[in-house]
């Protein structure tokens, strides 16, 4: 209560009012308001696609809002460029740190505002000394002269934080900063957030992890579908309430999981390992089963799946499909043997946005639709029509470029593309990341139906409700190894989180 009266008397460091932003075909933010207070951590919560990253881009001057005002210290401001936002004291630390691999640590901290000597030239000596001091303040014991590419992701975060300190930012946005960090590093980050708080910075903390939100945040703001649905003090809210606000419905009821009789093992993976990415992967996948792979971002799940379909080579391990030993050296061999992978990064690995829908759908199945190497457009359209209809695609025509579709419909095209190969095993990597709720439901319903028809599904997901709602069994990965296996009957969110984070079960 004391806190509440404090913040209500305090003036916000930055206040957004009525911010809206649209992109062709999508309303990313509508009439959003948000205030951040000095010395206070505000957690921004929302599902993927709720508008969080658009908000961050508006706050940092990458996007310009279509409407609404931004006030810094009660003065209305505009951020036409990233530089303007930085000058106004707003800085962001991103999940995939956006820094310069080939430049030194010190230069990454000071790029754009390096100390000059009296001739106006960059003063490297002072730059390195200052960098060392800032790194110490951020709690990092790093040599400022080494190149950034030689650092791990956690250390890169610390460099980004030192950069935020160097510009004397008053508003620090942390976009899922712990997503790729180890347990110990996460605690170091919490300590740092406390220090920033003590320094009077206003912090916007974006996270999907409720334990850390309750641990370090003072206030919360929930986004859903581009609108702000609630805000308040963390002390006044429970985890269940936050989840309900975020999802807009009670978890569990919406997942169209069908009861399926699980059949014989289809895919058996044993002793799979890679020199640097994963090891000791053993599991069986059965007919009609949906096997969930849960873990934190960077736990090695996607790396393992991509190795399974031949994008990278494992150093050892055996794969059996229907009892036959398989050697998969390329995705084309994986597709031919009936294992397909729907990748996580839709824009980079999944969709070919410059090509029309029907050509995307038929790309891996061309050998079936064509005759002796020559295209048969009629067959292609027939195949594309069949699968886009099954996924309930919304599009003006099948000849439309995939790039003109919304994210959710692009994802439907991508899934249709791999299903059209008639696989035995389908691996879906974060199948509903960044798509709207309507498309999400369609994808889930379809996944259930596939399993019911006897397809075996592996679903990689970082969203606990999705994992719990859809999986028959769950494998949790942590730091490249299997850290837990759970049957549907004894799944709890807490068990998953503990296994993924490597926290021992409380006695």
């Amino acid at each position, binding site marked *: 209560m004391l806190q509440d009266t404090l913040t209500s008397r305090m003036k916000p460091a930055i206040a957004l009012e009525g911010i809206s932003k649209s992109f062709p075909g999508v309303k990313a933010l509508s009439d959003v308001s948000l205030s951040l207070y000095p010395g206070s951590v505000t957690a921004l919560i929302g599902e993927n696609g709720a508008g969080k990253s658009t908000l961050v881009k508006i706050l940092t001057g990458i996007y310009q809002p279509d409407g609404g005002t931004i006030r810094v210290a009660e003065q209305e401001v505009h951020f036409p460029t990233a530089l303007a936002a930085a*000058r106004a004291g707003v800085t962001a630390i991103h999940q995939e740190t956006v820094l310069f691999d080939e430049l030194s640590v010190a230069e990454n901290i000071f790029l754009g505002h390096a100390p000059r000597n009296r001739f106006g030239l960059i003063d490297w000596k002072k730059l390195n000394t200052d960098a060392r001091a800032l790194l110490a303040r951020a709690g990092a014991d790093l040599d400022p002269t080494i190149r950034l590419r030689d650092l791990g992701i956690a250390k890169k975060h610390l460099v980004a934080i030192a950069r935020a300190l160097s510009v004397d930012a008053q508003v620090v946005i942390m976009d899922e900063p712990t997503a790729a960090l180890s347990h110990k590093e996460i605690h170091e980050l919490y300590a740092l957030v406390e220090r920033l708080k003590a320094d009077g910075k206003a912090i916007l903390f974006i996270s999907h992890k409720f334990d850390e939100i309750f641990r370090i945040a003072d206030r919360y703001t929930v986004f859903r579908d581009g609108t702000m649905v609630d805000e308040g003090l963390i002390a006044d809210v429970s985890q269940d309430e936050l989840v309900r606000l975020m999802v807009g419905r009670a978890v569990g009821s919406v997942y169209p999981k069908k009861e399926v009789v699980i059949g014989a093992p289809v895919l058996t993976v044993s002793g799979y390992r890679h020199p640097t990415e994963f090891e000791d992967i053993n599991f069986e996948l059965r007919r009609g089963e949906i096997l969930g792979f849960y873990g934190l971002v960077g736990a090695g799940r996607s790396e393992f799946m991509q190795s399974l379909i031949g994008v990278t080579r494992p150093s050892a391990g055996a794969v059996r499909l229907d009892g036959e030993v398989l050697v998969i050296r390329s995705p084309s061999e994986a597709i031919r043997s009936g294992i397909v992978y729907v990748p996580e990064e839709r824009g980079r690995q999944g969709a070919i946005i410059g090509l029309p829908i029907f050509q995307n759908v038929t790309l891996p199945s061309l050998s079936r639709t064509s005759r002796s190497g020559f295209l048969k457009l009629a067959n292609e359209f027939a195949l594309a029509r069949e699968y886009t209809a099954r996924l309930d695609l919304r599009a003006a025509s099948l000849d439309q470029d995939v790039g003109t579709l919304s994210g959710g419909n692009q994802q439907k095209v991508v899934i249709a593309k791999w299903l059209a190969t008639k696989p035995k095993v389908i691996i879906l990597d974060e199948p509903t990341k960044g798509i709207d709720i309507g498309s999400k439901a369609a994808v889930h319903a379809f996944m259930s139906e596939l399993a019911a028809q006897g397809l075996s599904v592996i679903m990689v997901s970082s969203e606990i409700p999705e994992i719990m709602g859809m999986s028959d069994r769950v494998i949790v990965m942590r730091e490249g190894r299997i850290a837990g296996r759970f049957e549907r009957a004894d799944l709890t969110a807490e068990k998953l989180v503990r296994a993924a984070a490597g926290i021992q079960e409380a006695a």
Partner: protein
Amino acid sequence: MAKFLKNRELLLVGAIAVLLALITWRFPPFVAPANLARVYNDTSILIILALGQMAVILTRCIDLSMAANLALSGMVAAMLNAAFPGLPIPLIMLAAIALGALLGMINGALVWKLDIPPIVVTLGTLTIYRGLIFLLTDGKWINAHQMSDAFKALPRDALFGFPVLSWLSLVMIGLVFLLMNRTALGRAFYAVGGNPHAAVYTGIDVGRTRFSAYCLSGALAGLSGYLWVSRYAVAYVDIAAGFELDIIAACVIGGISIAGGIGTVAGAVLGALFLGVIKNALPVINISPFAQMAISGTVIIIAVAVNARAERRKGRVILRKAEAV
């Protein structure tokens, strides 16, 4: 040793040393200080041009029009001199630099404002700039006798025992070194090429930075235009034809990554010197000068393969034990 191999510049110094040793074995006088100074002088123009190309390549662009720019600026300098023999040489030099910079700006503006791929822009301006020389001169040459003595003498005049040309290239190396390492613009070149997306977040205007790089390469091409024409005492449409590839070769050999963001002034200079040494050594060790082209081609391929190895990213390290190793 591993660390030594990682440092591209040291590797290149080593390669040049081995090259010199081989040449000395066949023809000892080559390494006489006076001869080495002559080789350096002969490579000066290539060095100046490589510095400009480096700035452009660092920003993930390329300038194929440098040699054509050189020829046009050089021709205009020669025409100015022929028409107004009294014009002071520094003024002519400035005019050549200004014209070069203007031609560079045209490249830069097309890349910046119209978003046309750099290779297409400079492929186009390469033919346009060279064509303009023809329009200006009707294909006629400007020969030594039409140029004033002062015009021709400047690069050759000795200053503290070395030709002005050598000194000029040293000054340019120094200036570009300062620009690259001690100014915000220089560092922006690296940032834009290394990670254009992050550069935007840092408040760097990617397009404007590329524009500046083209201005620099244009200005240096303009300066080289005057130096070339006065040194060889002749100007015609086809001077330095195909030289744009030597310039790019010097940069690639010098370890400047065509993908942008990686490269140093020392690398560009050493890359140019490597080519310069080969070019000057071939006649004296009785290898046909016609072999130069094939040798530089081979060296480019080796250099890009070596660079690619050095730049290859380590895979993501997820397993703890792998990180410890």
